[in-house]
C-alpha cells in the first residue's frame, strides 16, 4: 500500500522545463485513451519522477513491512500458523522485488533506491512503524492492514504505467490470501477464551486508526492529487478509498463480536455509509517525519540486515567472476 507518502511532497508539475508542450499534449491524449505507457515511451519528466517516487516507496514499504510480522515467526502458536506466516512474509519480500523491478524500468537502479532507504531519505508506509505486541496483532495486520492495502491497490492495477499496473495485478492476487488468513486468525481468537478475545479486541483497538491513516491525508489537504489523477497514476481519491474500506470492514468486525475504538462510528441510513470520527493527523505527521513508535528500530533492522548480507553479495559476485574467467579461458583454448 503504501502510496501515502506521495501526498506529503510538493507536486511535480506537468510543465517543468524540458518538456515540449506538443509532446505533453500527445502524451495526455494517449493516457486519456487509456493506452498504457511502456518503459521506452516518451513521458513527461514529472510523470517519471512521480512514478519513481511512488513505486520505490511502495517497494520499500513491502520490504520494511516484513519486519513487524517477521517478529512473530518463531513464536507462532502452531506449525500451521508458522507456515502461513512464513509464506506471507516471503510474499511481502517478493512484492518488494516486483516493485523495485517496475521502478527500475524508469531508469533508476535498484541499488540507488535501496541506498536512499538505508540513508533514511526515502519514505515507506507509516503503518509499519507500529509495534506488533501480541500474536493477535498478526491477525489484525492481515485483516486490516492488508485489507486497506487491497483497497488501495486494486485501482492501481489500472494505472497508466504498464509495468506498475502489471506488478499490482500479481500483488493483488496474492494479498487476498493475506487478508483472509488474518481474518481467520482474528475469528479463532474471537471465538476462543475470554483472554484470547481480549487480545483480539486490544489488537483492533491499536490497529484501527493507523489502518485508516494508510489511505493518506484527506482529499481536502492533498494538494496535488489532480495531476496524478489526470495522468491516471492515481485513480480513486484517498477519502473515497478510506470510505470503501470502512464500509467493508465494520460489518466484518461486528461479525467477530468486537467493537471499534471510535465512539462516533455509526451507520448513516441516508448515504448508506458508515461514518467515522476525526482522524488524529498529528500522529500520522509525526510518524511520517520519522518519530513514530518504531521508526528507528525498523531502520536499524534494515541496515543491519543489509550489512549482514554484504558477504553473501560479495561472495556471489566473486564466484560469478571466477566462473566467467574460467569459461573465457576454456573458450580461448
Amino acid at each position, binding site marked *: 500500500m503504501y502510496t501515502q507518502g506521495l501526498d506529503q511532497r510538493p507536486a511535480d508539475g506537468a510543465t517543468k522545463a524540458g518538456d515540449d508542450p506538443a509532446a505533453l499534449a500527445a502524451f495526455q491524449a494517449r493516457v486519456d485513451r487509456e493506452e498504457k505507457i*511502456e518503459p*521506452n*515511451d*516518451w513521458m513527461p519528466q514529472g510523470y517519471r519522477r512521480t512514478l519513481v517516487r511512488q513505486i520505490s516507496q511502495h517497494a520499500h514499504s513491502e520490504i520494511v513491512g516484513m519486519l513487524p510480522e517477521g517478529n512473530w515467526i518463531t513464536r507462532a502458536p502452531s506449525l500451521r500458523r508458522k507456515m502461513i506466516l512464513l*509464506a506471507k512474509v*516471503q*510474499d511481502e519480500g*517478493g512484492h518488494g*522485488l*516486483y516493485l523495485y*523491478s*517496475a521502478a*527500475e524500468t524508469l531508469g533508476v*537502479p*535498484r*541499488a540507488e533506491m*535501496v*541506498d536512499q532507504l*538505508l540513508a533514511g531519505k526515502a519514505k515507506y508506509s507509516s503503518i509499519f512503524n507500529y509495534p506488533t505486541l501480541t500474536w493477535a496483532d498478526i491477525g489484525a495486520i492481515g485483516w486490516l492492514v492488508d485489507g486497506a492495502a487491497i483497497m488501495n491497490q486494486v485501482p492501481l492495477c489500472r494505472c497508466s504505467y504498464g509495468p506498475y499496473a*502489471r*506488478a499490482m495485478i500479481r500483488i493483488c492476487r*496474492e494479498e487476498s490470501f493475506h487478508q483472509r488468513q488474518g481474518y481467520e486468525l482474528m475469528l479463532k481468537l474471537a471465538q476462543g477464551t475470554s483472554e484470547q478475545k481480549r487480545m483480539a479486541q486490544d489488537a483492533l483497538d491499536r490497529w484501527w486508526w493507523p489502518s485508516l491513516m494508510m489511505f493518506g491525508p484527506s482529499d481536502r489537504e492533498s494538494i496535488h492529487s489532480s495531476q496524478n489523477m489526470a495522468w491516471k497514476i492515481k485513480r480513486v481519491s484517498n477519502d473515497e478509498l478510506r470510505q470503501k474500506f470502512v464500509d467493508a470492514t465494520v460489518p466484518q468486525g461486528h461479525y467477530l463480536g468486537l467493537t471499534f475504538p471510535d465512539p462516533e462510528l455509526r451507520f448513516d441510513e441516508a448515504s448508506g455509509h458508515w461514518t467515522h470520527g476525526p482522524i488524529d493527523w498529528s500522529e500520522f505527521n509525526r510518524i511520517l517525519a520519522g518519530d513514530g513508535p518504531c521508526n528507528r528500530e525498523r531502520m536499524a533492522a534494515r541496515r543491519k540486515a*543489509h550489512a549482514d548480507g*554484504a558477504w553473501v*553479495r*560479495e561472495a*556471489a*559476485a566473486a*564466484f*560469478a567472476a571466477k*566462473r*566467467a574467467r574460467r569459461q573465457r579461458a576454456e573458450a580461448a583454448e
Partner: protein
Amino acid sequence: MAEDRNDWPLWEVFVRSRNGLAHRHVGSLHAVDGEMAVEMARDVYCRRAEGVSVWVARSADIVASDPARKDDMFEPMVSKIYRHPTFYEIPSEVKNI
C-alpha cells in the same frame, strides 16, 4: 555499500505456465549468473505453481524496436488489409472456405 554501486546484472524472466503454452515475460530480477537467476525466478515469480518452465535472459542482451519509430515500423503492415481473410468477398452459397 560500495559493492552495491556495482549491482548484480538484471535478467528478464519468462515463464511457461503449462505445457502447450508459450513462455511469457513476467518481470525481471538481479542475479550474478544464469543459474542463480533461474533459482531466484522460481522464488520470486513462481511461489504458487505459476509455471512448469523458466527462461532467463540478460536484459542487456535484449534488442528492442524503438517506440519512437513505432509508426514507420508497423504502419506498412497495417495498410495491407489484403493480408487478412476478411478482405475477400465470397458468395454465401460457397461453403467451407
